[in-house]
């Protein structure tokens, strides 16, 4: 049985891990997901796994009271997998980011995370 399985699985050697595509997921963010930063960031950057459709992609940032602290998210024209969100001056506290994006292959994905801004 082991042998049959071993022979049947030989083609597996031909496959290595491939770069993943399709459906945009958050690859990383700056400030990092769940991180705490000491000085208030002026801008939030979100890197996705795929190019986005600017017309249907956005993000918002809210403080712990639920008030919007962002000035809207914009897809970087030079790198369409990067979204930049301008932030108003942030006070120390916890902030929640919610993003909702449409990938170029027409799949909508969304997600949220938070980050902390520490004291002065």
């Amino acid at each position, binding site marked *: 049985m*082991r*042998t049959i*399985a*071993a*022979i049947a*699985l*030989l*083609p*597996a*050697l031909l*496959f*290595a*891990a*491939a*770069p*993943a*595509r*399709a*459906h945009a*997921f958050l*690859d*990383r963010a*700056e*400030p*990092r997901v*769940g*991180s*705490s*930063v*000491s*000085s208030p*960031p002026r*801008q939030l*950057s979100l890197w996705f*796994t*795929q*190019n986005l*459709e*600017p*017309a*249907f992609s956005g993000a918002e940032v809210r403080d712990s009271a639920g008030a919007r602290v962002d000035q809207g998210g914009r897809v970087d024209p030079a790198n*369409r*997998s990067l979204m930049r969100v301008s932030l108003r001056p942030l006070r120390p506290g916890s902030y929640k980011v919610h993003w909702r994006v*449409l*990938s*170029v*292959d*027409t*799949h*909508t994905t969304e997600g949220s995370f938070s980050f902390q801004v*520490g*004291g002065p």
Partner: protein
Amino acid sequence: MTEPLVIARAVHFASTATFAGLFLFLFLVGEPAFRASRCTPGILRKRFLAVGWISLELALASGAAWFLLLAFDLAGRSWDALVSRAIPRTLLTETQFGNDALVRLGLAALLSICLIRFRPDRGWRSRWDGFLASLLAACLIASLAWAGHGSAGSGAPGELQLAADALHLLGAAGWVGGLPPLLLLLAFARRTNDASALAMAADATWRFSQFGLISVCALLATGIINAYFLVGSVAGLVGTDYGRLLLAKVALFAVMVLFAAANRFGQLPRLFPPGRPRGAVLGRIERNGLVELGLGLAVLVIVGALGTMPPATHAQAWWPFPLRLSTDALREPGSWVELAGALAAVAVGVLAVLAAIFSTRWRWPLLAAAAVLLVWGTPHVSLITAEAFPTSFFVSPTGYSTGSIAVGRALFAGNCVSCHGASGRGDGPVAKDLRPPPADLTAEHIYGHSDGDLFWWITNGIGEAMPPFGAVLDATARWNLIDFLHANADARRLSEAADATGVALPLPEFSVECRDGPSLSTDQLRGNVVHLVFAGPASTTRLRQLASAKTNGEATIVVRPEASEPTAFCETRDPDVIAAFALYRGADAIDGTEFLVDASGWLRSMWFPGRRPDWEKPEILAGQIAAIRHTPGRPRPAAGAHLHAH
């Protein structure tokens, strides 16, 4: 919501393939066959025109339905929002999908002019008409690639994926889309049943089979490229919904190829030389072609569904077999010879069994030889297999960050130390009463198991030896623990390393903030040697020394406690960074400890006050930096376990 979208996509793919396939068929098969046999079947051309118009109408209707379903989804499934926010207009003008739809609409309009110019009595006005129409049709079907998963990549691999997808669609249109006109042609010839119509049908079948062979080869080659990008691994193929549906599609494709091969190699030769009764053979070709068409439509329904699903590369693959391939054992010297011998023995043994079936005279000696070879060879093939679990190919979602390691460290202290010990060496307080003893989690074998194997053991336990934690810790916590285990095992190697040139360990991810600049992640620091300095109250002199010293091209980063003075360097005060790196130091008091990271992002060496050689001497530090710059480190085994899925 998914089902209407799947149906709209399936109908759109099928009708567009039929529409485009008709033009390709007319240019490459139909009209040349008519010309060669001097047969002018006006009724048949009228039927072709009917296929053209019906498939065009279906393509327009299903394309509109697909577009509206997507717009409705984007409007949050509210008709009011759809209208008030002018979603369809934005979708059409500002997205790749919409622009592609406009281009396809334009191509369809041009092709409908071609259809009007196609005359039942004499076909195309000129060969140029036919050529132009088939070129437009090829563009129409290929441009569907921009509306799907194939368009998602970027850079050169993205272009390869897009080109493969476009060719795949063209191949499908050439084969499946050419079948309806071929079947009409065969039915016409059999009903007419005169010699010239039958000769024309034989000629057309021959031409179609040439062109079908090219389509099958193109479909196979481009399908493999697409699968590489969207499935990526055998685990993705057998362990995800997307992969299994793709396997079903490949199985249907294989049956289609069998029927096509029956026509190509079984029936086609019987049509030539002439003089034989052709009607019955054409009837069998028609029947096989009808089965191919039915299977082809089933494949297109699967295509409709696949495009709405997340590709396998984005799902965790549930491994269904108890074994996986593993080349770990092949690191042993001599194992290659053993494996080659075993494989040769098994191959010769199988050949001997086959030979025994055909040779009555040598049957028993051959079977005896085969038995010996197989009994000896088979167990040795297991050299390249390893035990596997359903989660063996799961990919950690945590990204090996200092935050994850810090959480994992706390979880380990709370759940694992009584058996595995505070430093994970299998020496906890209750360890001496346990049989088998708890594993040393810092030993070399920890690197031999995939993250997914460790995830399975933490979740389900190991027999009687280790209890399951699946109900105690959530999935993220279990991945955090695995990140901790790797960092903890690495810590032992880093502290035992004699110099900077030996080890190369994955650097946990974190971010630093630089003066007047954006914050940077460790990924972005690559390309430069990084000198990481953990500062404390006593570090003022050292920091001043570093600030005034001539650098050796390295980037210095200071990690300092929350309540300390800012420095001129890029720095971070993230307590998780301190908690994670305290592991490497082997003590919570990490002040004064320094690390070097090479330009490829590997953690290479550690120094703390009192350790030799003394990095406080500038020439020693410069020597260390030069050494790691010139000598690439040997990454520890299984360094790929943390390969990011994206």
